[in-house]
Structure formats: structure tokens, C-alpha cells
């Protein structure tokens, strides 16, 4: 039964050109970010004294040019992509674990505990999140871990709401009742019926959370309160580029292009997954 659900979803997903394009782009970018730096002869902090702020394809060995210190732009962008993707995936995982746990527990307990738990979510939700993320990075320093904690602290709220709503609604559905009447135990109902049905929205929302986290991290790094030099992230590379754009616009264009591509790809994939996993709208 649940096998049919996933097979249908897969069929719908493979039929969605934008979604498949998004997936392909992401796979390609991830592979390049992982393997690329090994294939290029430059380290990310290596300075080529002979070619500073060289335009793309003009200096030997630097396909996309160099920045103002003569560091290879392609290698730095790939390292930045690694850092941005790693933080985004980790923060999404944090949001996933806390959000699903909190939401499922609230939905399962119902009653006063549910009301109390969701009230807590409401209070955090009402806070100006970006500004609290800034406070958290100011307080806990500016490393990748601090950013992860700061973003993760708020990232789970929507997930908790979605999961709790799903769990509450699912309990009342006829097919759950039918399973119970059919003699399925609690474990079987939860594992075979509730979890698979909950998984769809969770996967969709997690996919759409990743680009959001990338944007917040880059936003902080751009402002100088995120990832710090010499570590690269797409955000601080864009900030570097913005400072040089009058004389060397490619230093801005390369990381900015990669960032936009990644965000687009994740959004396309997320939309395609939503169409694939939510047959009601199809």
C-alpha cells in the first residue's frame, strides 16, 4: 500500500522537468564542490603573485579568474559552496530533528501539553528571527558552529507546526481507523500508516528549508558577522566581490551566480516534490 504511494510519487517526480533539472543541477554542483578542488592545481588560500584580479580565461590555470589577492576564484567559490551547503544541510537536519520530535509529541499528547508546547512555538515565531540570529552570532562568536546554532534555534518552528497538524489530522482519518479495526497494533499503525503519510510534507518542507538557510547564512556572512576569512562562504565571497565590482565585476558574478543557481535548484526541486508527494493538488 505505502509502496504504491512512493512509486506514484516517483513517477510524478520523474515527469516534472523543472524538478529533475533542479535535482541534476544540485547533484552536479555538489559533485563539483566535493571533487573540483582536488582537480584544480590551486589551494583556496594560495596566492598567484603574477595574476591578481585576473579576468576569467585570461590567466593560465585560472578558469574563472582570480580575486584581488590572486587567489583562484573557482577554487574559492567551490570551497564557499561546500561551507554554505554543509551549514545549510546541518541546520536543516537540526530543524528536522527538533521540529519533527516536538510536533509529533505535541500532536500525539494532544490536550493541555499540546497547547502549552505550541504556545511556546507561537512565542518564538512572533520574534523578529533575523535579528535574534544576529544577537546569537554576536553572543556566541562568528564561527560555523555559532551560525548553525543560531539558525537552527529558529528553523524548527515551522516544521513543528506542520508535523503537529499532520499528526493531529492523521489520527482522525478513516484509513487509520480501518487499520485499527483491522487489528493493527499501535506500533504498526504509527510505523506503517502515520509515519509514511507524515514523511511527504516533512521531505517537502525540509527541501525548501535548505535554500532558506543558505540565504540566511550568506546574508550574515555578507554583512561580516557570519563565516570569516580565510574560510570562504558564498556570502563573504559576494561581499568581497561587491567591494571590487567597479574594476573586477567577475569576482562578484561568480559566487553570486552559483548562489542563485543553488537557490533556484532547491526551490524547483522542492516544488516538484510537493507536487509529487501531495496528490490532492495533482
Amino acid at each position, binding site marked *: 500500500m505505502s509502496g504504491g504511494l512512493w512509486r506514484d510519487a516517483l513517477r510524478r517526480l520523474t515527469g516534472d522537468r523543472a524538478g529533475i533539472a533542479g535535482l541534476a543541477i544540485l547533484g552536479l554542483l555538489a559533485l563539483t564542490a566535493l571533487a573540483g578542488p582536488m582537480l584544480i592545481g590551486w589551494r583556496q588560500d594560495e596566492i598567484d603573485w603574477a595574476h591578481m584580479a585576473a579576468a576569467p580565461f585570461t590567466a593560465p590555470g585560472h578558469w574563472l579568474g582570480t580575486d584581488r589577492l590572486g587567489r583562484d576564484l573557482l577554487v574559492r567559490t567551490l570551497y564557499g559552496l561546500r561551507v554554505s551547503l554543509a551549514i545549510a544541510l546541518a541546520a536543516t537536519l537540526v530543524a528536522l530533528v527538533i521540529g519533527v520530535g516536538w510536533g509529533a509529541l505535541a500532536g500525539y499528547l494532544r490536550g493541555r501539553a499540546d497547547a502549552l508546547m505550541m504556545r511556546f512555538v507561537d*512565542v518564538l515565531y*512572533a*520574534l*523578529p*528571527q*533575523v*535579528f*535574534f540570529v*544576529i*544577537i*546569537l*552570532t*554576536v*553572543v*556566541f562568536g562568528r564561527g560555523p558552529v555559532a551560525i548553525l546554532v543560531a539558525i537552527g534555534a529558529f528553523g524548527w518552528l515551522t516544521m513543528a507546526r506542520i508535523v503537529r497538524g499532520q499528526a493531529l489530522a492523521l489520527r482522525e482519518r478513516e484509513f487509520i481507523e480501518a487499520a485499527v479495526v483491522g487489528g493493527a497494533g499501535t506500533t504498526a499503525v504509527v510505523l506503517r500508516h502515520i509515519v509514511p503519510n507524515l514523511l511527504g510534507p516533512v521531505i517537502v518542507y525540509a527541501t525548501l528549508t535548505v*535554500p532558506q538557510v543558505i*540565504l540566511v547564512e*550568506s*546574508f550574515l556572512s*555578507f*554583512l*561580516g*558577522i557570519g563565516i570569516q576569512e580565510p574560510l570562504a562562504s558564498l*556570502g563573504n565571497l*559576494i*561581499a568581497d*566581490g*561587491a567591494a571590487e*565590482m*567597479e574594476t573586477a*565585476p567577475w569576482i*562578484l558574478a561568480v559566487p*553570486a551566480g552559483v*548562489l*542563485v543557481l543553488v*537557490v*533556484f535548484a532547491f*526551490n524547483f526541486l522542492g516544488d516538484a516534490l510537493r507536487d509529487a508527494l501531495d496528490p490532492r493538488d495533482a
Partner: protein
Amino acid sequence: MSTLAFVARRLLAAIPTLAVVIALSFALTRAAPGGPFDEEQALPPEIRANLEAAYGLDAPVHLQFGRYLRGLLQGDFGPSYKFRDFTVTELIAGGLPVSLAIGLAALFLALALGIPLGAWAALARGRGADRAVMALAVAGISVPVFVVAPFLALVFGIWLGWLPVAGWEPGRPADLILPVLTLALPVIAYLARLTRGSLLEVLRSTWIRAARARGLPRRVVLLRHALPAALLPVVSYLGPAAAAVLAGSLVVETIFGLPGMGRHLVQGALNRDYTLVMGMVIVYAALMIVLNLLADLACAWLDPRIRSGRHA
């Protein structure tokens, strides 16, 4: 009467949020490892003690919080730890008008462009205009402000030379065109998408068909019946839109060199200037609460069901 009660209820509900903002930001900055006077070179203990006494940091935390709250009620946000010549209140008073001006201008621009664009796309559903508007909307949503801002500055400021790239002099509105446009673009994109979806749904409803069947002209059906109903989700989005504009203003003020609150906040964050960051965050939170409140009121004005509490 019921409207007044509604306003009062919403105002009261906003107070706990602001209280949480103040308490949480105070607690977080006090929980920070290291004090505000940690420099590269350690201060002699006597000087450090004097500094802490001067800023009231030697008192127990709950007394500090009480003093801070009392100050806030009188509009006193305390001294800035790093800008020694200014109080936080002075920095806020200097920056708030600039931030407010570009923020509100961006919101109004977004409303004035986003809603008609979305309505146009909905009416041209499936045709070229619709596709073009929606493609632009996806781009506007996916491309972040910190990419749009340098890009616009590069094209209009440097290559074309039409507009100033950075800086700000009172009475020179040309300085504000690029910042406002940058802030408005993502909101325009989002509003266009929302308006399109919502209007399409409303146009499918039976009461619109009924209005048409009564022989009302197309224009009247659209402007008097369909649009007001379709604008509800759009107006509800104004709260989040305001939050997005305020966050974006940090980037825009930094890039275009505007002396607004956002730039002070970023500077404060870079300098670990706790009182400055705290004060700015509280003011931003208050702004967001007020804008959310206005959005709620606009919603209630458009939809009597919300006002009377009979909503769904």
C-alpha cells in the same frame, strides 16, 4: 465599538511579544562569554572595575535588568559601549528616520507595482504576459537582496551612471532610488505571485459567476467584487513583508552607505557592542509589531468575519 475592541485586543496581545523580545535579548547578551571591554590587550583590573562601575555592570543582574527597563520606559537605551560619544538613543534617533523612510517607500512601491502585476498575470492566465510576470516573480524571490543591490549599483550607478552609487545627503532623493528599488523588488515579486493565485481562485468562485450572470460589467465585477476579496492574503502578507524589508535594510544601508539603523546594527554586531545591538533589535521588533498590527487592522477592515471573531 467592535472595531475599537478589536484594536485594543490586538494592542494588548503585542505587549507580551515585546516583553519577550526585551527579556530574551537582555538575557542573551548577559549570557555572552566575555565582557564588552575584552580587547586584544587585557585591561588592568582596576580600570576594568572602574569601567564596569561606570556602566553599571557591577550590580547584580536583576538590578541591571530593572534599571534597563526603567530606562527603556523613559526612552533611554543606555550608553553605547563602543561609540563612546553617543548614547544608543541618539544613534537610534539619527538612524530611525532614514530606515523608516526607505522601508515605507519600498513597501508602498511594492504594493503599487506588485498587486497590478499579479492581477494582470491572472487575467492573462497562460499567455505570454502571465509567463513573463511569473518568471520575473520567481527570479525576484530567489535572488537575495545582497546580490540585487551590488548588481543594480553596478548597472545603474557605474556602467550607466544614472544614479549615485552610495552616500546620502539630506534633500537628495536620487540617493534613495536604488536602495528603495532593491528593497522593493522581492516584495513586488511575492505580492505579484500572491495576487495572481488569489485572484484566480476568487474568479472561479460561484459568487463571481453570479455577479457576471447579473449582467454587471466586467470592470465592475473585477474591481468591486473580485479584487477586494482577492487582496486578503496579500494584506496578510504585509507583516512578513515588513520583516523582510527590515532585514533587507541591513544590507541595503550597508551597501549604499545610508546612515540608518541597519548600518548601526551591523557595526554594533561587528564590534560586539551589546547595548547598541540590543537597543536596535528592540526598536526593530517594535516596528515589526506595529506593522503587523496595521496589516491585521487592514485585514479586519477588508473582511468583517475577522473583526467579529467568526472567522473559520
